[in-house]
């Protein structure tokens, strides 16, 4: 936990996440560490993750927003761009990060990623492989995982 005063940016972002929540997304900071967020993302409709609620953790380092937030899935998910540990392969979380991006935009990007898996740029190689070889089966697996792990 950091002792430094919370930057205005984080305070504002947090306030806005509370007052103007994004449909299907929630992010709540921990009481004892305001840089640490519990995140829930609803699987987008029409995707294999529909109906699932995915928990993520999000941490804003001291260098935020100069560096992207650290974020990973806590809920098991079958997705070519998310590995077993929940790490996410997303350009805006890496090279394409810009300090103008925010928690909200990042979570929207992740939600979008759920709706549009990109097996050409995989993080979980086996998932990507099966996705490419037999997309229907992969989608079925994803749906099953969603039912098993992400359904409240």
């Amino acid at each position: 936990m950091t002792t430094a005063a919370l930057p205005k940016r984080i305070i504002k972002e947090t306030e806005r996440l509370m007052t103007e929540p994004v449909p299907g997304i929630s992010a709540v900071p921990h009481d004892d560490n305001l840089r640490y967020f519990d995140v829930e993302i609803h699987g987008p409709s029409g995707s294999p993750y529909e109906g699932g609620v995915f928990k993520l953790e999000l941490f804003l380092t001291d260098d935020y927003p100069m560096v992207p937030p650290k974020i990973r899935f806590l809920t098991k998910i079958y997705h070519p761009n998310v590995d077993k540990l929940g790490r996410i392969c997303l350009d805006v979380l890496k090279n394409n990060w810009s300090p103008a991006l925010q928690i909200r935009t990042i979570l929207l990007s992740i939600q979008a990623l759920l709706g549009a898996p990109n097996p050409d740029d995989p993080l979980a190689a086996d998932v990507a492989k099966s996705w490419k070889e037999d997309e229907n089966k992969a989608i079925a697996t994803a749906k099953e995982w969603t039912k098993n792990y992400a359904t409240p």
Partner: protein
Amino acid sequence: MSFAGSEEPPAKKRRFFADSDDSPAKNDAAPEFLQTRSPLAVKQSQNGSNPSSANGPTNAPRPQPTSTSADTVTFADEAFEAFIGEKVDPEALSTIRSHCGNNLERAVNMYFDGTWKNFRKRPTPISNSPMFPSRPSQPQSAASNGAHVPSLPPSLSRSMPETRYIGAFGVEGWATRSGATLKYGDAVKIDRQKIQPKPSAARSKNKIDVSAAPPRMSPAEARRVDVIVRFTDAGGSEIGRLAKDAANWISSLMDQSVCNFEGSCVYAPERIRTNDTVFIQLWCFLKRSIFQGNRIQLSSNNRSTGLFEEKETSEERDLRLRQVALVRLFQEINLAPTRANAAAAKDSSQGLLSAAEMDEKKSKDASKSSNREARGSSPPSDDAEEGEELEQDQLDSLYRKAQSFDFNTPEAEPADTFAMDLRPYQKQSLHWMLAKEKDQKNEAREASMHPLWEEYSWPVKDVDDKDLPLVENQDSFYVNPYSGEMSLDFPVQEQHCLGGILADEMGLGKTIQMLSLIHSHKSEIATQKSDASINSVNGLPRLPSNSHGIVSAPKTTLVVAPMSLLAQWQSEAENASKDGTLKSIIYYGNDKIGDLQTLCCEANLSSAPDVIITSYGVVLSEFSQMTARKGSKDQHTGLFSLNFFRIILDEGHTIKNRQSKTAKACYELSAEHRWVLTGTPIVNRLEDLFSLVRFLRVEPWNNFSFWRTFITVPFESKDFMRALDVVQTVLEPLVMRRTKDMKTPDGQFLVPLPPKSVEVVDVELSEVERDVYDHIFRRARSTFSANIDKGTVMKAYTTIFAQILRLRQSCCHPILVRNKDIVADEEVAGAEADAAAGLSDDMDLQSLIEQFTATTGDEKDANAFGAHVLEQIRDEAVNECPICSEEPMIDQTVTGCWHSACKKCLLDYIKRSTDRHEVARCFNCREPLNTRGLFEVVRHDDDSSVKISLRRLGVNESSSKVVSLMNHLRALRKEHPRMKSVVFSQFTSFMSLIEPALAKANMHFVRLDGSITQKARAAVLKEFSESDKFTIFLISLRAGGVGLNLTQAKRVFMMDPWWSFAVEAQAIDRVHRMGQDDEVKVYRFITKDSVEERMLRVQDRKKFIATSLGMMSDEEKRLQKIEDIKELLS
């Protein structure tokens, strides 16, 4: 018993002792040709001897130069009478013959100037002085004869004789040549002759030429003032000299024509050899001339000496020598005052002598002479620096003593015409001031003796117990042992000072209090006339009846203030008075009224101004004009032609140096009531106070010698408590002082001031600045340590300080240490190069858009696009920063792709990318970015419509300190868009570098420094006080540290620390003073890890060390200074 070189036995002269009153002077003046031909005659008349008045019994031989005339004619009675042109009384002839040393010319001179009569009655020297117990009194040695009648009744003359016996004492002498014979009782002449190379023709045959071969004169000695006193036999040939100790003061008495001496031998060896000791009894006769016209001469000298910047003026030096010599003389002859000032008498004699010693010591130190004998030879000593500086703690305890303000002092209500409300403590001081001014009316003053003078009785019997001639109504004479002045008239104590020093701390309203006094106490004439004169002829302007000399100005108060405060005084005077009740004029520069005398004189009372406000400069220049006319007040119609009702010196410490011309000029102003206003009656020396007291004419303290004796000397000899006690007794009746932190008995501050906070702002140097700083720092340190090794630190003090100054400047702005011209040239050249490349650093949006248009070639679209961009950028400014969410953005900065963010965020972001060796891309559109392609948005908020322009970033960036200041100011403007601030710096060149930064940020500012004229000053002050927008006042610490009232400002920015925080505090108090109704925030910009930080430490330490008086000796102080430098360069 023959005298070497003399034809006449000494016994001869005693033949003419018997009567004293015969043969009055027959001649009135020496013939012209003789006077001009003979240097001797001229010399004697200069000595103040007036032949026509020489009609009393006089006793002293004059100092007779032994070798002045080139063509000596031997004396013969016939030739003498032929010269004189008349028959001479045989007795007189005989006297002259015996004293002329066989020199006809001298004889003639003696006859005409009357000095021969001096020899006619001369008491026989007898050796009953206590100094020579081995020689019991043996009246009338072999040489004496019946002509001397001891029982002769004392003669009585009606006026003071030319000289009058005062006493006798013994001295030692030493022979300068062998072979002379001198016996007990032989007359000895005392002779004072300056050593000057003389033409050998001056030698006379039967005299030994002493001047041609001055014995054992070291070159060092020759440079010093000559104090040699010779004694010769009756014929005038040198036998020897008086011992140095006695000669020191006897020479001053003789040189200044205070008295004559004649001597007789008490003991001499049978055959005198060089360097033998001879004992002599000296008879001392005070000259009449010293009782006359002393003061007149002094005061006229006073003027002329002011023109030279001598440390101790020669006049002061003469006076001091004379004063010391007189005290010594009275001690030697055992003459005690019959009446003296009780307070002074306590330890006066001791004090006076130790004062003298002090001076001698100084002279010795100054001349660095190894010769102990030269102790008293007194080259002009360093008296201008006399008075050691007071340590802060000594000053504090002094002030504490002077601040025993009694809160039960009665209050006085100001007159109806006064338009302001006074606080209780101000009413108390009004009461006090009224009481001081009306002092004279309370008590009928009886003539009491002036406290400085002492009364002495003329001795009625000489040292041989013989009666002396008496003078009618002259039993006593009076001596001022502090100045060396003497008088036959009873010295009456002059009036008490009808004024004082109002020394309230800054911000307690000294000006207002004085104005209330001006309203509440007017002279009787003024009040009467103003009632009666309305319809009478008196109301018509007319010329003063006496247009020469000083004319009374019974209605007018003269205010002398520093130039910068003239306008403030006038406006406060107006504000404090009900309409039409007070007329004030500024007497300065081109506005000066030609004829003050006519304006203010009694006859023109109805139109005379109540207050004339002028500057010290005007006083000085009128004084100089007057002295140029040799002190004549004729035709002078200015300040010195009037006797004002009241004079007020504002910021009175301006005249703290009593030798400054300004101080002398102020002393000469005349008025009924004299007041000094100052927050610091003592700046750093006790002598500072002396000058104020002198201006106030407070007896006896306005006598510098008295002051020295009771204050300076004890202080310098480490008797601090005594000195400060005395100062306190001086101050107590004179000074009213309250401080801001004083509390009334019920615990309230005198003036509730809003709170003040002082915050140190750390400034971090940029890399480039740090390089410059380090370079200078290393150089300074190596100079210092080199000097430490050589032990020459104190000598190289100035060099080291110059380097520390550079160091301090480089903390402010590296450019300050470089040659200004080069810098300016570089800047111009750089700007030209940019212009040539089509890249102006300061371009407005329109020109940017024009460039854009040029590349696209589509004007219509470009305009639409331009308008859009303009709107977007302007609107984005109020948005939050996309990076840090500040709202609005701090220093909005625009990328080449027109995206805005805070300047700091954007630069941070770009730096992160470049640190990772990546190309920075726009945070918004991912266009590649570089710092050169960023533009700062400059808002022109002055107009109602918001206009913006863009300025390329990173060019002409000022120093870190300026940037830090600008950040504070910008934040302040955002928070308080109309607040006014003051920025102090001690470097005017630094102010010149802050100016462009302010201009860039579009902040309104005014500037005040020492170079500004009075008119411009007033304009600047007015502009600042009347401005209704965000305004910054740039003031140089020195020009604006005192006097100004800047309560309109609420923020103070101190750009650089001064050696003592007191100076900064005083500047801060310009803002945080009475009239301030808001909290004041002070920011001190201090460069981190630099000499400035260490200066703060030195400042702090100075506050705490040496809390008890006198803990530090000079040596320790010196070490302390070295320590200070060490700390600065550590």
